[in-house]
């Protein structure tokens, strides 16, 4: 009698993963965006080198471009355009390390939180506060 009860098929546990997937799909929403077809802004794009150590992260987020600019005369400003490749909301941490003309580290922005909605594209920017800073390294990790 006891064995019979254990072996009986119950549809409830089987339906749970399906229900979970349906709920998750219902929660996921992605951003629609609209902008000028022919942008008037002209960015000075940096020819960047990419080192990927986390392929899961690389499938979740894409650095579309990195642009540089000089503000207040001689201070390096970096703007990275970042796109979420997932349909659900995701959070990341990013940091910009500053490097001087001799290749030595010259401070950083500290880790920052980056929360993106599904397929959202955003830009993160930072200004180096030392005129001797000529280079940067952008680092991103998934939260």
């Amino acid at each position, binding site marked *: 009698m006891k064995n019979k009860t254990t072996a009986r098929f119950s549809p409830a546990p089987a339906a749970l993963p399906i229900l979970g997937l349906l709920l998750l799909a219902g929660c996921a929403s992605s951003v629609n965006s609209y902008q000028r077809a022919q942008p008037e802004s002209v960015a000075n794009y940096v020819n960047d080198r990419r080192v990927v150590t986390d392929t899961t992260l690389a499938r979740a987020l894409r650095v579309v471009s990195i642009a540089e600019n000089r*503000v*207040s*005369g001689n*201070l390096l*400003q970096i703007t990275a355009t970042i796109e979420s490749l997932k349909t659900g909301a995701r959070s990341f*941490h990013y940091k910009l390390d500053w490097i001087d003309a001799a290749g030595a580290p010259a401070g*950083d*922005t*500290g*880790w*920052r*939180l980056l929360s993106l909605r599904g397929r959202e594209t955003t830009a993160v*920017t*930072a*200004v180096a*506060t*030392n*005129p001797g800073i000529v280079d940067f390294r952008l680092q991103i990790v998934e*939260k």
Partner: protein
Amino acid sequence: MKTHTTPILALAAAAGALLMSGCSTPAHYVDSKGPATLVSLNQINIQDFYQAADDLVAGILASGVLERAPAQPAVLLVSRIINNTQTNFDMSLLSEKVSGALLNTGKIVVLNDTDAKAESQRQMNEFLGKGAARPKPYYSLSGKIIEDKASAGRTKQTSYVFQLSLTLVDDGIQAWKGEKTITKQGTRSAIGW
């Protein structure tokens, strides 16, 4: 029966000890700007000061306002920053970060009237009529930190609004204004963010 109970009890005790040691966290260092820092709902955390100062400095520099001073580097006087939050903290956590970062750019020099030795020597020089005259500040840095609290059920939300402005000392005109808001939400404070 007795032979079965003893190992179970020993196992439970070992598991309990492991769990207890896993729950306590010995003191350790964390990156002051990093995501391992504490997040408090009722006060400004150290990473909040760093983030607010960095963003406000970036705003000043990107605006190009420092380039417009007739004499370079311009003289900056750090004026009053008002704390309108419910917690007491040293306002230099913000003002020193901002004025220090601006000083490092080489675009300004900061007038320091809090150094007792330098101030007494300056007064002596003034009395004796020697030495250079005290430079007149061109910009004054002032601001305010405001707290805004809200809740829905058990969830609390606190926003800290950091407001800064650069004012031309001669005529009182505001040359730059900036604001950075940091919002935290949750039912209780947490380790990490």
